C-alpha cells in the first residue's frame, strides 16, 4: 500500500474491503456558496482534477439542479448546457452527474442533459414527497440512464417514513436511494437510525449527503457508512451550501482508514482539493454564526445568501429570520418566504436597533 493509494492503517482483512462509491457534487452544491457564478475554466479545471483522482461521479450544475437558475434562488453565470459541456470535455474516466428537482427542472432539461453526456441523474424531492419523482424516474428508465432518487431536508421525517419513501422510489425505478441532510441538522445517532431503517427496507445502494452546520459532516458520513450506506457525497474543501458539505479529501481517507475501499487516489484527491480552494472559492466554507443557526433551526443551507441579503436590506437579525423560517417549516425552494418573514420581523420590532453587520458571515 503506497501513501498515494491510501492512508489506511489497521485494515488487515483478507477479504475485499467493502466498497464505498464516492459521489462528488463540488461543482453543483458548491455553486450555492458563490451565487451560482462558476465559470467555464473553473468547471473544466476541477472536473479534470477530480477525474485524475479517480472520483467515480462528478456532479455539475446550478446549486438547485437543472433548470433552476432563477431570481428565486440565484441566476447562474452559465447555462446548464455550457456547464455540462465544460465538465464533459474534462472527464476521461469519471462519470458526469446532474441533479434535478421536479417542479424546478422538467423532462426537457433531462433530455438536454442526457444529450450532453450526463451518465448519472439524481432526482430530488422534499423528504415526504417522493412521488413527485415518479414521472422523471419513468422517463430516465425509458432513456436507460442511471437514476438515483434522494430525499431532501430529511431531518423533517421519521426514519420509518424515509424508509417507506425510499422503497417507493425503488419501485419507480431508482437504482440507488438515500437522504440529504440539507440543513446540516443531524447528529451521528440520527443518521445511524435513518440509514439503518432505509438499508433494511431496500435492496439498492443507499446514499448519504451531509452538511456541516454543526460540525458533524464527516462523523455523520461515517455513521451512515456503518449503518449500511454505500454511496457517500463529499465536496472538495467542503465547498457547498451554508457551512458546506462533508469535506471530500477528509472523508475519503477516513473511510479508507476504517477499512472501506473508495478507489480514489489520495495525492490526486488532495491536488483536486487544493485546486478547488485556489480556483473555485473566495475562502473555504466555515461554520459561521449564521450557519450554526441555520443548522439548529433546520432550514435549508442554500437559503443563507438570500437571508443575509434580505435581512441586511430590512435591517433585521438574520438569525431571527432563520429561526422564524424554521418555525414555518420552510422547505428547499421556498426562498420567497424570506422577504415576508424579514418584513414582518421589521414591522414587529420597530426601527432596527442591532447593527446587522455585527453578525459574522456576510460573505457569499
Amino acid at each position, binding site marked *: 500500500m503506497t501513501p498515494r493509494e491510501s492512508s489506511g492503517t489497521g485494515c488487515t482483512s483478507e477479504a475485499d474491503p467493502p466498497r464505498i462509491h464516492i459521489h462528488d457534487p463540488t461543482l453543483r452544491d458548491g455553486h450555492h456558496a458563490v451565487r451560482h457564478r462558476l465559470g467555464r475554466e473553473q468547471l473544466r479545471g476541477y472536473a479534470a482534477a477530480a477525474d485524475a483522482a479517480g472520483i467515480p461521479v462528478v456532479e455539475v450544475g446550478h446549486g438547485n439542479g437543472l433548470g*433552476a437558475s*432563477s*431570481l*428565486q434562488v440565484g441566476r447562474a453565470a452559465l447555462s446548464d448546457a455550457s456547464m455540462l459541456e465544460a465538465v464533459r470535455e474534462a472527464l476521461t474516466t469519471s462519470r458526469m452527474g446532474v441533479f434535478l428537482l*421536479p*417542479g*424546478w427542472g*422538467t*423532462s*426537457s432539461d433531462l433530455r438536454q442533459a442526457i444529450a450532453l453526456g450526463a451518465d448519472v441523474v439524481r432526482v430530488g424531492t*422534499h423528504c*415526504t*414527497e417522493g*412521488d*413527485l419523482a*415518479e*414521472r422523471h424516474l419513468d422517463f430516465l428508465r425509458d432513456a436507460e440512464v442511471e437514476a438515483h432518487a434522494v430525499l431532501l431536508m430529511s431531518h*423533517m421525517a421519521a426514519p420509518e417514513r424515509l424508509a417507506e419513501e425510499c422503497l417507493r422510489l425503488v419501485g419507480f425505478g431508482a437504482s440507488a436511494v438515500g437522504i440529504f441532510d440539507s440543513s446540516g441538522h443531524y447528529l451521528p445517532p440520527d443518521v445511524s437510525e435513518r440509514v439503518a431503517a432505509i438499508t433494511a427496507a431496500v435492496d439498492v445502494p443507499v446514499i448519504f449527503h451531509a452538511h456541516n452546520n454543526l460540525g458533524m459532516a464527516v462523523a455523520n458520513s461515517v455513521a451512515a457508512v456503518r449503518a449500511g450506506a454505500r454511496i457517500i457525497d463529499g465536496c472538495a474543501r467542503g465547498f457547498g451550501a451554508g457551512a458546506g458539505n462533508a469535506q471530500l479529501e477528509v472523508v475519503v481517507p477516513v473511510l479508507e482508514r476504517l477499512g472501506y475501499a473508495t478507489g480514489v487516489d489520495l495525492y490526486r484527491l488532495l491536488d483536486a482539493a487544493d485546486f478547488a480552494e485556489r480556483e473555485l472559492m473566495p475562502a473555504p466554507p466555515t461554520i459561521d454564526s449564521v450557519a450554526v443557526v441555520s443548522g439548529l433551526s433546520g432550514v435549508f443551507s442554500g437559503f443563507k445568501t438570500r437571508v443575509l441579503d434580505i435581512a441586511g*436590506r430590512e435591517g433585521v437579525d438574520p438569525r431571527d429570520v432563520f429561526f422564524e423560517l424554521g418555525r*414555518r*417549516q*420552510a*422547505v428547499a*425552494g*421556498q426562498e*420567497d418566504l424570506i*422577504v*415576508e418573514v424579514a*418584513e414582518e420581523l421589521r414591522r414587529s420590532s420597530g426601527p432596527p436597533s442591532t447593527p446587522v453587520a455585527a453578525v459574522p458571515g456576510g460573505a457569499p
Partner: protein
Amino acid sequence: MDRGRPLTVAVLGAGLIGVDLVTKIRRSPLLECRLVVARDDQARGLRMAAALGCRTSSKGIDALLDSSEPYDIVFDATNAMSHAEHWALLQPTGTRMIDLTPSMIGTMVAPTVNGAEAGRHANVNLISCGGQAALPVLHRLAREISAEYIEVVTTAASRSVGRATRMNLDEYIETTRAAVTRFTGVADSKVMVNLSPAQPPSPFRVAISLLAPAADPERVSVLVEEAAVAMRRFVPGYRIKVCSVADGVVFVAVEVEATGDRIPHYAGNLDIINAAAVHVAERHPAPLGGRT
C-alpha cells in the same frame, strides 16, 4: 344571462379538484350537475360526489359517450394526457369543455384577464392554479410596466395536491409559462412549483417577480391592489401578502385561502381554479344544441 333553465354539466375526474368542483357547481343556480365520472381508483372521490347528491359512474369517458343525454358542458379534472383523448372523443358531440388540466389544448382563459372571450371557444383551458393566481396581477402590471423577465413560484400544501397534479408538474410548468407569455407579451419567463408539507398547512402561495428596472413602487402597489379587488369578486380569499420594489425587481406574493366550502382553508389552489371553472361556465352562451 337568462336561459330559462340551468346548463347541464358533467365532471370527469373525482380527485381533489373534481370533488371540490362538484361542491361549487351544486351551489350555482345556473349549473346542474348531472353526472360525475371517474375510474375505479377514484372510488373515494366518487362516493363523496354521490354523498353530495350527484349521479356517479366509474366507467370513465365511456360513461359520457354512452349517455343518451347530451351535456351542455363537460369539466375535465383528470390529467393533461387524458384530456387530449377526452377532447378528441367529445368534440364531435358538440359538447363544450372546460379543462382544468394543464394540457395546453383549449384556449387559455383567466376570468379577470380574458373571461369575456371564453364563450367563443368550445374548449377552454384554465391553465393551472398558479396561473389563475399570478396572471391577474401580471396582466395588470404588464399593461403599464415594461418587464424584461417574469418569474412565478407556486407553493401548495402537500395535502391539497393529488396524484394527477404530481404527475403533471412538467405540463403545469410549460402551460403556465406559455400563459405568462401570452398574457404579458414577455417571452423570457420561468415557472417553478413547490409543495409544502408544513403542519398546520399554509395557504396556497404564489410568488411573482418581474425584472422591471423602471417600475414605480407606488404605481405597482395600486395596480396590484386593483387586480386583487377584481379577483376577490369570485375568490374571496385572494390576498396580497407582499408587494415590494427593490433593486429593479417587482416582487408580489399572493396568498389564496379557500373560503366557504368543504375543502380546508389552505387549499386555495383548488378553490381558485374551481372558482374560475364555475365563473367561466356560468357565463357560457346558450347551449350549442339551441334548446331553451
